[in-house]
């Protein structure tokens, strides 16, 4: 008996929702990005699990997981650069206090 597909799906759904909670609830902008990383990982677990369980000869699942890796790296690089730039000018990383474009 090996692991049923549903276990991976439930784990990924739980991880996604924990990440969503982190994104919604954190004040620190860096902590919000940590939540986004959890959500991206949940998506990747789903992609790889479906690849393995449906059709391992087709590489679609793994190929898109690789692209999610690249997008996650781009997102973190730009996001953290923005946060550091904002911190340098305004001396804050609290998302609520970065309200220059809010009215």
């Amino acid at each position, binding site marked *: *008996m*090996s*692991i*049923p*597909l549903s*276990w*991976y*799906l439930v*784990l990924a*759904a*739980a*991880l*996604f*929702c*924990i*990440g*969503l909670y*982190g994104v*919604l*609830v*954190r004040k*620190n902008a*860096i*902590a919000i990005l*940590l*939540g986004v*990383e*959890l959500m991206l*990982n949940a998506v*990747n*677990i789903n992609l*790889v*699990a479906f690849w*393995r*369980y449906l*059709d*391992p*000869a087709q*590489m*679609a699942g*793994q*190929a*898109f*997981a*690789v*692209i999610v890796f*690249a997008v*996650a*790296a*781009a*997102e*973190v690089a*730009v996001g*953290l*650069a923005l*946060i*550091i*730039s904002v911190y340098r000018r305004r001396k*804050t*990383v609290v998302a609520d206090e970065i309200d220059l474009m809010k009215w």
Partner: protein
Amino acid sequence: MTAEQIFFLLTAAVILIAALMVVTVRKLLHAALWLVLVLFGVAVLYAILQANFLAVVQLVVYIGAIAILFIFADMLTRRDLRDRPGQTRFNWWVAALLGLAIFVGLLSALLSVPNVNRTPAALPTDTDLVAALGTALVSPQGYVLPFEVASVLLLAALIGAVYLAGVNKKS
């Protein structure tokens, strides 16, 4: 219960507990270190799923680069939130309820996938999976277009990050 299932459940428990610590722990540096544990657990899952290349990439790119980037960003922006009382919003329970509701919704959607308790499909015996992934990523019949788009995106993000984080001498 086989050994494989017990191993999976242990890994899943580690991932979920570490993920909860990431979103609740007070010190951001500790949250980043808990994130490393989550990422390592996900790498173990990839290894169980026989996605060997992705397991290695997870270790190298996520733990080796992204988690370290978080730790550096935290260190560069310190002495800011440490003295404040709360790290989370006052209405955190709304977010918790929303997360729970979305989890239930996702669960009902996922469990309606046809034959959801299926066991893994047989691996093709005649091909090397890593070689097949490499071929699929660069062959015109495969995913060369999304792959190139991702690399252009990465280059643009790299230049943008250097521009944004660099010291602007004019201002």
